[in-house]
Structure formats: structure tokens, C-alpha cells
């Protein structure tokens, strides 16, 4: 696609990181595209005001401002500038690990960002029953290629999850983030499975935090490299050692 044909997708944040950078270089030399973007901004500026009023839920102000003011304390060093068009710059720049943000902030980031190590660095990873926080500093200019991403769904649950296979620095990772999970009892864990035909392979274990959120990043290098995965699923297991699903599959998606 010619660069000038990417105006709409640029405006709607539909470009990949790489495409966006290319397009921004193009913008520097193409008056026409710059004008078109300004024009779109201008022509759409009234549209939000067509919104029908909806009353916010009880207590929202306290919750939102509480979270906002808590943020400042852990973020005081950051001063990233985002332009008027609010490009997703802050999500592409490497960050120091910020323990205070671990619990919930990752869920709120864009999936594109969730798939980079800068975020995985903040995800609580549980392997073999030992809890550890993966705190590797993010690789600068790492090239993440999202090979596939799917949303997992289940019949009997409000829970949902998004899984993605990404290739990063020659490593294949399966990342998954889930929310609205039921709380676990005792040694129970959520186990991620990749299925080739009927054969399940363990692909990461995680627990839910008190908000019902859980996530895992699993290196797929231990799995058969030539596998043609048919499905990804999550089951609730009695502990983190199940070699095949013992509990019910709560969420799944074909691949």
C-alpha cells in the first residue's frame, strides 16, 4: 500500500509499530497527508458531543482519582511527551520495572504492548508451583512479531482471556492474559494447554489475583517445534503438576 493510502489507518491506530514509524517519516515530507490528518481531526471534533449522556456508576470518581494519584508517586520520574494525536509512544518506550503497578496496570495496556517484554516484565509468572516475578528489563528495539492472537471463551464462565503467539528475538512465546477468573482454592492453578489434535501440551501455569486477573508468558521452545497447534485452552487444575487436564476446561479457542 502506498504511504498516502495509510492516512485512515494511521488516524485510527491501526498501523503496526513499524508501519507507524514509516508513515511518520513519510508525513514529514508529505504535506497532503499532514493536511488530511489535520482535516480529519477538525472534521470529527464535534462528533463526541453527539453522545447521549449516561450516568457514571456510584463511586467512580473516588476510584479513578485514587488510582490516578497513586500513579504519580510511582511514576514521578516519567515525563514522556505524547503529541496532540496521542500516539502510543509511552507503550513503546522501555520502562524500568515498576512494582507498584504490577497488579493491574498490565491489563489496561494495549495488546500490542502487552506482547512486548516490557510488559511481560511486569507479569507474575508461576512455574512449577514456584511464584516468581519476571523482572527482566525490556529489550530495546526488540522485534516482536505477533504470529497469531485469539480470544478464549467458555460456556459456563464470565472469564475471558486473550492469547497470542509472538516471536521475539528468535524465541517463540505464548502469552496469555485472563480476567474475571474465579478465585482458586488451596493448590489449585490455572493451566494453559496447547492442543495438537487431541494431544494436550502444558503451556504455562498461573493463578488469579484478588481481582480475578492472571497472566502467563510461556516459552514455546520446549514444545515440539513442528507442531501445528489446533487449539489453546485453560483448565482449572488441582495443582501445578497435571500432565493432562484433570479439571474442566473453562476457556478455549481454536487456532
Amino acid at each position, binding site marked *: 500500500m502506498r504511504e498516502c*493510502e495509510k*492516512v*485512515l*489507518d494511521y488516524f*485510527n*491506530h*491501526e498501523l503496526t509499530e513499524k508501519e507507524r514509524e514509516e508513515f511518520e517519516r513519510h508525513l514529514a515530507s508529505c504535506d497532503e497527508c499532514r493536511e*488530511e490528518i489535520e*482535516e*480529519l*481531526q*477538525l*472534521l*470529527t*471534533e*464535534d*462528533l*463526541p*458531543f*453527539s*453522545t*447521549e*449522556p*449516561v*450516568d*457514571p*456508576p456510584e463511586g*467512580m*470518581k473516588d*476510584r*479513578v*482519582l485514587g*488510582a*490516578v*494519584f497513586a*500513579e*504519580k508517586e510511582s*511514576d514521578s520520574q*516519567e*515525563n*514522556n*511527551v*505524547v*503529541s*496532540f*494525536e*496521542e500516539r*502510543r509512544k*509511552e*507503550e513503546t518506550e522501555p520502562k524500568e520495572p515498576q512494582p507498584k503497578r504490577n497488579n493491574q496496570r498490565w491489563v*489496561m*495496556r*494495549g*495488546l*500490542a504492548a*502487552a506482547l512486548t517484554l516490557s510488559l511481560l516484565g511486569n507479569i507474575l509468572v508461576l512455574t512449577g508451583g514456584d511464584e516468581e516475578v519476571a523482572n527482566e528489563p525490556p529489550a530495546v528495539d526488540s522485534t516482536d512479531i505477533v504470529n497469531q*492472537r*485469539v*480470544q478464549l471463551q467458555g460456556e459456563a464462565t464470565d472469564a475471558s482471556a*486473550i492469547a497470542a503467539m509472538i516471536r521475539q528475538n528468535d524465541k517463540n512465546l505464548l502469552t496469555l492474559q485472563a480476567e474475571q477468573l474465579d478465585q482458586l482454592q488451596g493448590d489449585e492453578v490455572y493451566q494453559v494447554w496447547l492442543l495438537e489434535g487431541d494431544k494436550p501440551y502444558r503451556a504455562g501455569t498461573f493463578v488469579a489475583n484478588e481481582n480475578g486477573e492472571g497472566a502467563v508468558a510461556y516459552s514455546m521452545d520446549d514444545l515440539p517445534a513442528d507442531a501445528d497447534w489446533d487449539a489453546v485452552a485453560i483448565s482449572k487444575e488441582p495443582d501445578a503438576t497435571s500432565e493432562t487436564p484433570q479439571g474442566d476446561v473453562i476457556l478455549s479457542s481454536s487456532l
Partner: protein
Amino acid sequence: MMALATVEKGCVMSNRDLEHYQKMIDGDKESLEAIYDKYEKLLYSFVIKLSSDPSLAEEVLQEVFIKLWTHKAKYDETKGKFSSWIVTITRYTAIDIIRAKKNESVSLEEETDMPEQQGDSVEDLVEWKEKSSEVRKAIDQLSDDQQKIVHLFYFQGCSQSKIAEECDLPLGTVKGRLRLALKHLKKHISTAEGGIRDA
């Protein structure tokens, strides 16, 4: 904030916004709160319109105000009104979060029924009050196809190829059709504004 509701002119409001914004940059919590109070309902309602999902709206607002408070989003008054800026930030934050949460096909297949309205007043924000009915009327004056393309592009945040598919248009004509629809819309809105001023 109630006093603002009696202020008639938009320019006074945006000066007040700028004042709050600048104090907020210096770390004044009350100024952020003032901005919050003024825009809460508009932004909340707007995100619901974008996502058809009230559960996302609070999260989006939180992210928006974190961006303001941590200076990740910077307002430049030479580039437009504060209100336009904050709704723009909100739209992009919503688009990015919605995309993160949902498989694209799921989000786009979802029907975007009008959310249930719980209040019919827009008393907190004069600009909203002034513009809402005229913008809605202007949208109503567009053809169905034009309404659809505007909705898919602006409120659904669809890609060009998705719009082409949904509207059964060749990819290359999407931009032209969209611009035409938006220009019509702007013309209807300006006419309506002119009408109000003349009256």
C-alpha cells in the same frame, strides 16, 4: 463547577480549562479534580458509545487521567481546544484498550445498540449541551451510507479495509467517501451554529 454551567461562552470555559490544566501540570490535585468533574460524564458516555461496554469505560477514564496527571499526554493550546484534546485522548485510549481486550472480529461484530440512557441532561458541560442536539441533527441529515461510514470510522475505529468490506466499497474509495460524509456533517453543524447565533 456548577458556576460554569451558567457561563454562556465557550471561550470562557476553555480559558478556565487551560488554567486548571496548567495548575494540574504543577501537581495541583484540585485542578485535576476540577477537570475530572467537568468531563467525567461526557468522557464516560463517550467511551460507552465507542465500546458499547460500560465496564470498559471506567478503566479508560482512569487511563486517560493517569496520562494527564503523569504528563504522558500533553495539551498544547495552540493546537486546539482543551475539550477537543481530551476527547481525542479518550478516543485513542478507548480504541487501544478495546483492541487489547477483544479479538477484532468479536468487537466489530458486536451490535452497537444505543446504550441505555440514564439521564437526559448534560448540565455539567455547556459545550456538550450546546452541541449535542445540533450534532445529532446533523448526523441525521446524512444518508444511511454516510452515517454508517462515519460510525465505523470514528466510533468503531475500524481499519480502512474493514470499512471497505462493511460498506461494500473498493478500498481506494473509502477515504474519499468518508471525507465527503464528514464535510457534509461539518457543513450541517456550521449551518446550525450560524442559525443559533443569528437567532
